[in-house]
């Protein structure tokens, strides 16, 4: 564990970027940002900048991977080499491979895959700039991109990280808090249905803190969920306006 060279919570209970413990960073979501993709979304969460494209349902190559009873969901989470402090090698790291898997499993419960047997739905995530919480922001954006692609969903998936900093539970860790804090607990939920679809933890937490984390996450997720819906609405309005011309 690295020892923090800096104080992460100040005497007024403010975090290093001025937020209170339960505050999330500024979030901006746009949908329909790419021309080629069937659906797409762009998210900024603090300094995180992530773009997501969805292709599908479409034919599966190689064909033997196709599933008889549902669509094959594939997910590729990737960080641009320039997205982080030290240049990342362009080939997928073990971290990116694991995250591709857990993000896929976070999105899968929300999609009516059974409506498109023998097809593939591909989710491509590119992190352009990273500053703590890329997996949760990716999930948030990916579910908007899926909806933008017109893929029928049970609910959106909305995600946020709860963290532990100087003994305190805080919401939406930034990069420094992630690096020097005591714990990180990313949570993804289907907000309407109340299901947790991604849940990981790193660091040390008590059972009591788990309970508290869910409460904190709940509030943050509600806010972000509104942003997701707004992003989809704006796109719809834009489309409608153009349609009227």
């Amino acid at each position, binding site marked *: *564990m*690295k020892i923090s060279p800096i104080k992460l919570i100040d005497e007024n209970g403010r975090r290093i970027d001025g937020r209170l413990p339960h505050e999330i960073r500024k979030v901006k979501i746009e949908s329909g940002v790419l021309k080629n993709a069937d659906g797409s979304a762009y998210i900024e969460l603090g300094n995180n900048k992530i773009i997501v494209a969805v292709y599908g349902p479409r034919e599966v190559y190689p064909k033997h991977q196709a*599933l008889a009873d549902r669509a*094959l969901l594939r997910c590729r989470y990737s960080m641009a080499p320039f997205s982080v402090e030290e240049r990342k090698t362009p080939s997928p790291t*073990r*971290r990116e*491979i*694991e995250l*591709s*898997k*857990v993000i896929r*499993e976070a999105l*899968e*419960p929300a999609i009516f895959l059974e409506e498109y047997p023998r097809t593939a739905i591909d989710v491509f995530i590119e992190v352009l700039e990273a500053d703590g919480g890329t997996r949760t922001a990716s999930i948030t954006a990916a579910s908007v991109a899926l909806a933008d692609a017109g893929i029928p969903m049970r609910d959106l998936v909305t995600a946020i990280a709860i963290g532990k900093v100087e003994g305190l539970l805080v919401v939406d860790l930034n990069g420094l808090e992630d690096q020097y804090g005591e*714990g990180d*607990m990313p949570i993804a*939920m*289907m907000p309407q*249905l*109340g*299901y*947790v*679809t*991604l*849940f*990981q*933890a*790193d*660091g*040390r*937490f*008590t*059972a009591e803190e*788990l*309970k508290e984390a*869910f409460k904190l996450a709940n509030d943050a997720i509600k806010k972000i969920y509104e942003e997701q819906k707004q992003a989809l609405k704006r796109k719809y309005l834009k489309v409608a306006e153009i349609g009227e011309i």
Partner: protein
Amino acid sequence: MSSKASEVLSLLKRDVLLGNLKRGERLDGRGPEDYREIKIETGIIGKAEGSALVHIGDTKVIAGVKAEIGTPFPDTPNQGVQIVNAELIPLASPIFEPGPPGEDDIELARVIDRGLRSAETIRLDELVLIPGKKVWTIFIDIYSLDYNGNLFDASGLAALSALLTTNLKKTEITGENIILKEEEQPLPVGRKPVYVTLVKIEDILLVDPSYEEELLADARITFIVDESDNICGIQKGGKKGFKPSEILKAADIAIETATKLRKILPST
């Protein structure tokens, strides 16, 4: 485990399994919170600094620890290096394929790695030989030999047991020169994390799933628990979700189960 595997279970078997579960019975007679029989053999690989073969029911996993003198990472000049590798080799199951590690192997290795780090099991700060220049690198290689469910717990137990019985050569350092002596001393260890996995089938939570139960499972969750009942890691998997209340209940069961499992750990 893999999406391919999930197609193997016949509909018939599925119905029987589910029917039984609803009556509180598991296929092998266990109750929902019962763990299978565990056997741990340590010190079995002479060439390794530490080793353990763990049986959980018919699941067998071996872990070996090798120690080498290497250089620290630039951002942690005063810490040893921990590297965890896991391989789901085709010897262990017809559903494992030869080739470089896939996402299942990598997820497993990274979950074991994070649990050990969060618990500070290996006291990396005590593995520095020449600060900023030479440290011990500890490799933990985990090989599944027979896969019949619950590789996370078996791998975690094998890794921990191997580490608890690892000995490093003593060293004599003069200037930049490191001499390895014949004498050995135990690897310095901190907290001892125990991995406990549950699956959810419809609304039933089952501890220590068998292979068939994993095939049937809607979702999986692993808790890593230390001797103070702290949770040192969580990993959710699977194609469906949990209700928050289910996760909290699973956490309680995991903490209880960990206390039981802890009793059979090898002594350092």
